């Protein structure tokens, strides 16, 4: 009986994984196809679509622009998230809970509405361009970074900060010599997470990008509307997936590190 239950459980888990990962796996496999159009399974393997990707100026510039937006917004989001998290852990009871919901509220806010709202807002204050997009991505990435930094601060022994102060360290030195060296895995994870979110973000970018500053998802989205050379999208997606996997593994490692550091 136990064996049967086991098999059933594993089968269900397998199906779930397949449902989640299946489409991604198909896209990744197809990106190595030698065919001209989408066929599955691919008739042969080649790297031609990757070559084409790197030869397509609009794709590479979108890729680089996405990297820049991701990096900049992730750094800003992490700095803000760290400040916010430091403030929140110092609060007690109701205030703490309230502030936490406040800082994570953008998570549940529909991105498409945020995009539209920001577009209208930027129009009225006459702002926009890459800066506008970066600011939007800071807003979107901050809740993720906030969660991760908050988690690492919550397991951080606050007495250490008092110990540093009792030895003559002001707030600045206390943070950079004691707090940050201990919670950095959480902070870095938060930053990487914010980067991933920004890198794959489409909804808000739809409103806030423009000619000369398109992100990779926007460029991919654009390609979908034209026939031909469609598999270049698969190559772009594969690159994106590869990057996310590397970052996710890094975060995983860091979170493990944070746990070891605590003991």
């Amino acid at each position, binding site marked *: 009986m136990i064996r049967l239950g086991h098999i059933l459980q594993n089968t269900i888990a397998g199906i779930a994984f397949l449902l989640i990962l299946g489409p991604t796996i198909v896209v990744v496999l197809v990106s190595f196809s030698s065919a001209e159009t989408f066929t599955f399974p691919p008739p042969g393997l080649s790297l031609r679509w990757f070559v084409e990707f790197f030869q397509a100026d609009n794709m590479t510039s979108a890729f680089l622009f996405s990297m820049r937006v991701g990096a900049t917004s992730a750094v800003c989001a992490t700095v803000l998230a760290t400040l916010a998290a430091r403030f929140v852990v110092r609060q007690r009871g109701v205030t703490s809970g309230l502030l936490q919901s406040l800082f994570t509220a953008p998570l549940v806010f529909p991105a498409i509405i945020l995009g539209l709202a920001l577009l209208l807002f930027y129009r009225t204050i006459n702002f926009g361009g890459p800066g506008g997009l970066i600011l939007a991505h800071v807003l979107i990435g901050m809740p993720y970074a906030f969660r991760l930094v908050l988690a690492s601060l919550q397991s951080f*022994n606050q*007495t250490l900060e*008092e110990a540093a102060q*009792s*030895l*003559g360290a002001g707030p600045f030195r206390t943070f950079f010599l004691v707090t940050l060296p201990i919670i950095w895995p959480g902070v870095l994870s938060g930053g990487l997470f914010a980067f991933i979110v920004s890198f794959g973000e489409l909804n808000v970018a739809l409103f806030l990008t423009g000619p000369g500053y398109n992100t990779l998802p926007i460029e991919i989205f654009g390609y979908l509307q034209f026939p031909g050379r469609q598999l270049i999208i698969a190559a772009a997606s594969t690159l994106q997936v590869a990057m996310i996997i590397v970052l996710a593994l890094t975060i995983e490692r860091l979170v493990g590190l944070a746990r070891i*550091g605590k003991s």
Partner: protein
Amino acid sequence: MAAGEIDVRLENVSKSFDRVEAVKDVSVDIPRGQFFSLLGPSGCGKTTTLRLVAGFEHPSAGAIYIRGAAVTRVPPYRRDYSMVFQNFALFPHLTMAENVAFGLRMRRVPGPERARRAREALAMVKLEGLAERYPRQLSGGQQQRVALARALVVQPAVLLLDEPLGALDKKLREEMQVELRELQHRLGTTTLFVTHDQEEALTMSDRIAIMRDGVIEQIGQPREVYERPRTEFVASFLGVSNFFDGRITAAANGSATVDLGFGQAVLSHRGTVGEAVRFAVRPEKVRLGQISTGGFAAQVREIVYRGVTTHIYLDCHGNEVIVFLQNASSDALAWRIGDAVAFSWERDSAVVLDRG
């Protein structure tokens, strides 16, 4: 004593959190070099008092001085003290040597001198061999010593200790008590020590303040507070006491005769006839004898052998009286449960308590 020699002064300090008044109108002077203990049960406000001196809490009223400087509004990192925390609070990402050198680094002591002083401080607590280890690689006792070295190396005006031995087992704790006391004597560092362990306070302190519900009930040398407790709380928190109630029937020349209901006792006390008094007698000051020797009659209810002493519980007309007898000879062991006995004490052993 000159005013300049007071290292820590609390002037009518109070502190309330939302609804709790944790510290109420506390005034304390700690002269240079003194080992001063705050003793009291859990929740009486000891830690809060210490944190007020450290600057981690701000008083609702009153003023705090360290070495004569008003620090009430000064942030913790600009106050001249250092502290040993209950759970040591060593920096986990720094080696022992770096932990100890941290305070010197904050004071911008140049590198070579810093290294030398950190080494000396580690040697002082007998841990020179562990300089390159990390906190998690050390035992509790070793961490405790490093925490002490880290606090002392900066030569603070005052050393604050919040139950620093609480996390250690009994044997190690007793060793550390002696070690800490020796070190403090040698360095002459003014020390404010918080504990709820009365034996620890008696062992280590030059002076003890006994706290209860945010109020200091009595301050004095260990012997003074033990032998002359002013309140029932002090008499029962610090050691064990027998309490007696009575009414004064005659008073003259600083002595009073008190009717206890089961007999008459004479106390050194300036009172008036008719006044109700309550007094305490330490169990080790009670003498026990045969009925024929005179004293209050009682019956032996229970005998507990404790190695160094034997505790004898008497029933005296419904009142319980505890007697501690030294096991110096086998006299103490001669009593049997049910024996009729007489007990008494020297007149000065009875301490009249404040009516609170």
